[in-house]
């Protein structure tokens, strides 16, 4: 049950509510991909400075999450998945979420710029700005391409990690950016297929709401077909070893196989008229795609780490 707080009423927000504002699950993926960018970058960064960089990236991601929850409280209140978030549930006042996000973001950017390097700080500022201003405030409520373009914000952390070490950018972190960028649409569209009614109720123009399920299924397949070779590109271009290549090909093939199943399954996921059993089946495939896409991205980045730390060993054994 939601509680409406007046401006004068003292806050009942607990520490857990502020942690929830930072979207810890999203943050964990951001930190992991940033860590991989940092770990595979050439050169040496003192472990304390590396940890500082990761803390700043985590806090910056949390700030972006808090600002997103501040701005989207009206949408969140209308969606089953998000209505218990701290702001729509009334546990945190909107002005508290705004102040929290601005404070965290400011600290993260300044500390990263001062203690690590200015390029990394600027990239973090750009990431938070893109996520809040371009995705949340501009695109999300206006176009079904919201998560395609907005996905750039989620794709930047490996570049920040890389820049923390090198003070610049190169082809490798750009490949990592592209992998996450092209991974985002099939990942979120699989979710939005079985949450379409929620998005429609909230007035968010997600692709299934605006263009319908068949078009969404087609787009999921197209992006997965682009993603699979892109996922293998670090190996194809010689930036990663065979272990990575095998994992990327297997994972990419599984992504495409799931996308094909979604494409070929014409049972409406949410529309009335379909038999309940068939609908459950259609739901299950989309949920499978959503869950597997997270595993796939984790696998790719984990294999880059494995490759980085076992590469010299494998080379030594081969020699």
């Amino acid at each position, binding site marked *: 049950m939601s509680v409406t707080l007046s401006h*004068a009423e*003292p*806050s*009942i*927000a*607990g*520490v857990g509510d*502020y942690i929830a504002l930072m979207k810890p699950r999203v943050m964990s993926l951001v930190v992991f991909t940033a860590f991989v960018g940092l770990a595979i970058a050439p050169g040496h960064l*003192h472990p*304390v*400075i590396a940890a*500082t960089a990761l*803390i700043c990236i985590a806090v910056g991601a949390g700030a972006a999450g808090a600002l997103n929850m501040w701005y989207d409280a009206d949408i969140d209140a209308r969606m089953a998945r998000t209505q218990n978030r701290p702001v729509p549930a009334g546990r945190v006042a909107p002005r508290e979420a705004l102040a929290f996000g601005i404070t965290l973001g400011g*600290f993260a950017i300044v*500390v990263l*710029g*001062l*203690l690590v*390097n*200015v*390029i990394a700080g600027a990239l973090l500022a750009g990431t938070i700005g893109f996520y809040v201003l371009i995705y949340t405030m501009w695109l999300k409520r206006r176009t079904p391409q919201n998560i395609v373009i907005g996905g750039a914000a989620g794709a930047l952390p490996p570049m920040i990690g890389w820049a923390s070490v090198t*003070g610049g950018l190169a082809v490798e972190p750009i490949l990592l950016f592209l992998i996450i960028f092209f991974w985002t649409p099939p990942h979120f569209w699989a979710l939005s297929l079985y949450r379409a009614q929620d998005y429609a109720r909230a007035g968010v123009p997600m692709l299934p709401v605006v263009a319908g399920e068949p078009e969404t299924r087609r787009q999921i397949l197209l992006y997965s077909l682009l993603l699979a070779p892109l996922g293998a590109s670090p190996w194809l271009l010689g930036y990663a070893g065979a272990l990575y290549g095998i994992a990327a090909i297997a994972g990419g093939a599984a992504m495409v196989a799931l996308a094909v199943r979604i494409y070929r399954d014409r049972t409406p996921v949410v529309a009335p008229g379909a038999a309940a059993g068939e609908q459950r089946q259609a739901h299950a495939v989309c949920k499978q795609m959503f869950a597997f896409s997270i595993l796939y991205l984790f696998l790719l980045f984990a294999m880059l780490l494995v490759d980085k730390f076992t590469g010299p060993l494998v080379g030594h054994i081969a020699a």
Partner: protein
Amino acid sequence: MAMDEDKPEPGIRLTERQSRARRARSIAIAVSLGLLVILFYIVTLVKGPGVLHRPL
């Protein structure tokens, strides 16, 4: 004078839940600031005299 003493104190009176939440938030802020101080101290030790040197 005696009547004034019987009046409740002016201002906002926190409920038990609000008091607990405020105390928890205050502790969290103190811990965060403490960690920030420790971080700056350690980074200063690690970077040494070059702590203000920030290459692009």
